[in-house]
């Protein structure tokens, strides 16, 4: 089995707002192996993006602050590195693409300048070398007429093209890990299919690890090797993709799977999870899902369940499975 590339150990990232402390990432641990695709799934506000930004050390402070834990990347604790060391990792060893391809490119620089910049900074290439490498990258992400694109400005390209360019920039320094934060949410279905296809292809070619953040379980099923489900700042379940979809354990994961209509499997009525995500401020020491859970027991409202694995390595944080852990 491949070794761990990234390991989150009890990561805690809090935001200090006027209303109170938001524990956006609250004691999160999981790992990503080399060459593996890990999907972080959850609804808005569950802390999935903040987890990724913590890894990049891009949490705005204030109001945000990484309060504890470790993030081991390739043998180093990211949280202990200096800002200069961190800059060498960002965009060089870890690439990142965002949801909004419209705003993540600089509108006054040409596409070529934006792809060449990290090459010249991190790989110390000459302008000529960077130009050639940039053209090669543009071709790799499936855009024809690369020379013409090099001299275009972002507004001249469509959303799908811009997202491809973002991927090209992220790939420019051959990162070991690519973080994709909802990379297809702003795109149309047919374009989404193109981008997912591209991500899968690139990952295979380069044996690069992919950390994909999404709310769409369909995308997870298509691309993930391993899935981490988050709810209100905590990991509530994690398992290899087949295991998770075949045998979802946490009532929240099950509810999510049942609540989504699926083409070709029409039901008369959709299953719903009652209520809504709790207010992240001032959560007590109990299972955060307990007030929406149809299986909630007394203990669920008194103690936080810990993440524990069964014999297949399927981890879940739920009091319903307490008996299984002891075995």
């Amino acid at each position, binding site marked *: 089995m491949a070794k761990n590339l990234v390991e989150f150990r009890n990561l805690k990232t809090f935001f200090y707002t006027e209303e109170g402390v938001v524990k956006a990432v609250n004691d999160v641990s999981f790992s990503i192996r080399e060459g593996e695709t890990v999907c972080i799934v959850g*609804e*808005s506000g569950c802390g999935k993006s903040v987890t990724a930004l913590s890894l990049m050390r891009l949490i705005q402070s204030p109001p945000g602050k990484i309060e504890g834990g470790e993030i081991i990347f390739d043998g180093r604790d990211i949280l202990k590195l200096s800002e200069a060391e961190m800059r060498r990792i960002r965009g060089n060893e870890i690439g990142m693409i965002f949801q909004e391809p419209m705003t993540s490119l600089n509108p006054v620089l040409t596409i070529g300048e934006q792809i060449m910049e990290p090459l010249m900074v991190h790989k110390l290439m000459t302008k000529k070398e960077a130009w050639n490498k940039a053209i090669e990258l543009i071709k790799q992400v499936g855009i024809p007429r690369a020379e013409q694109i090099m001299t275009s400005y972002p507004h001249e390209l*469509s959303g*799908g*093209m811009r997202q491809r360019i973002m991927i090209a920039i992220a790939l420019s320094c051959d990162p070991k890990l690519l973080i994709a934060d909802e990379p297809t949410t702003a795109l*149309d*279905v*047919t*374009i*989404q*299919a*193109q981008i*997912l*296809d591209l991500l899968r292809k690139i990952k295979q070619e380069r044996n690069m690890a992919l950390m994909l953040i999404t*709310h*769409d*379980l*369909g*995308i*997870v*099923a*298509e691309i*993930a090797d391993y899935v981490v489900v988050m709810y209100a700042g905590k990991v509530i379940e994690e398992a290899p*993709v*087949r295991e998770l*979809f075949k045998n979802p354990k946490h009532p929240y994961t099950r*509810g*999510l*799977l049942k*609540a*989504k*209509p*699926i*083409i*070709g499997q*029409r*039901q008369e*009525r*959709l*299953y*719903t*999870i*009652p209520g*809504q*995500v709790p207010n992240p401020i001032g959560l007590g020491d109990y299972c955060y899902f307990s007030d929406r859970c149809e299986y909630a027991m007394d203990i669920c409202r008194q103690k936080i369940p810990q993440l524990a694995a069964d014999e297949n390595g399927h981890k879940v944080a739920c009091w319903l499975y307490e008996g299984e852990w002891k075995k």
Partner: protein
Amino acid sequence: MSEPLIEVKNLKKYFPIRGGILQRTIGYVKAVDGVTFTINKGETLSLVGESGCGKSTVGRTIIRLYDKTDGEVFYKSIPIHSLKKSELRKLRPKMQLVFQDPFSSLNPRLRVGDAIGEALLDHGLISKNELRDKVIETMEICGLAPYHIDRYPHEFSGGQRQRIGIARALILDPEFIVLDEPVSSLDVSIQAQIINLLMDLQEQKGLTYLFISHDLSVVEHISTRVAVMYLGSIVEMAARDELFAHPLHPYTQALLSAVPIPDPDLKRERIILEGDIPSPANPPKGCKFHTRCPLAKDICREQVPEYKDVGGGHFVACHLV
């Protein structure tokens, strides 16, 4: 077959593109370029398509939020676009719209109760004394608690705001509601709540829906019939089960195959379309889809395909069918 409630005949909506110092019209975005369909009483017709295909513009032009460029829309045989402003205002309560964005569609400085009740009062459909009870009743139907009535929109989550938007439309006792991507900005668990609410309301009140969406899995769940739009035109329309079982247009087929399905063991033959959607300001000649169509032939590049019935109310516009 039930009677038609809305009839749309060759509806066109062009938005002018202005340029130069004098802001003269230098071209048109043909957002809706001749669509014809009917919506029967009590059914849900879904309009599906990708961004820029004109589906929202159709929804807004049908209820005359935008003035048409050509064609006509009939509501119970009344030509909507020929009405005077005062006549249109009287008809407004019967045709409602629920917006996509639950944040910008509510006035941040208006209490929820006022937002829901003000139109009823303004149209003189209720007395001031009865208003509050009616608002509370409608809020409860839409799954909002009575004590929410005096709060402001910012105190609510996206799903609840969408319920407020639905209550605001519902209180006027409409017959026809345009649902403009009502669930696409919501999380999955909330999406299901809202879809169920919409379907329950339809059943209880015999509502007619035009459901605009890009999410085919939601469309399959909610629709009676489905129309697929591409660059301002309808390329295929059929009853739901027929369309999902036997899609005829290559675009519909590609759309269907592009939807990710939450089943890691499922291996599908996937049609991945090349390229991007062309600009509606400068659509391709002939069949508008030919630039991306994997099956395009010479005829597709020259002639506009006829929109024809291939049997059983299944309409398609493609040379190859």
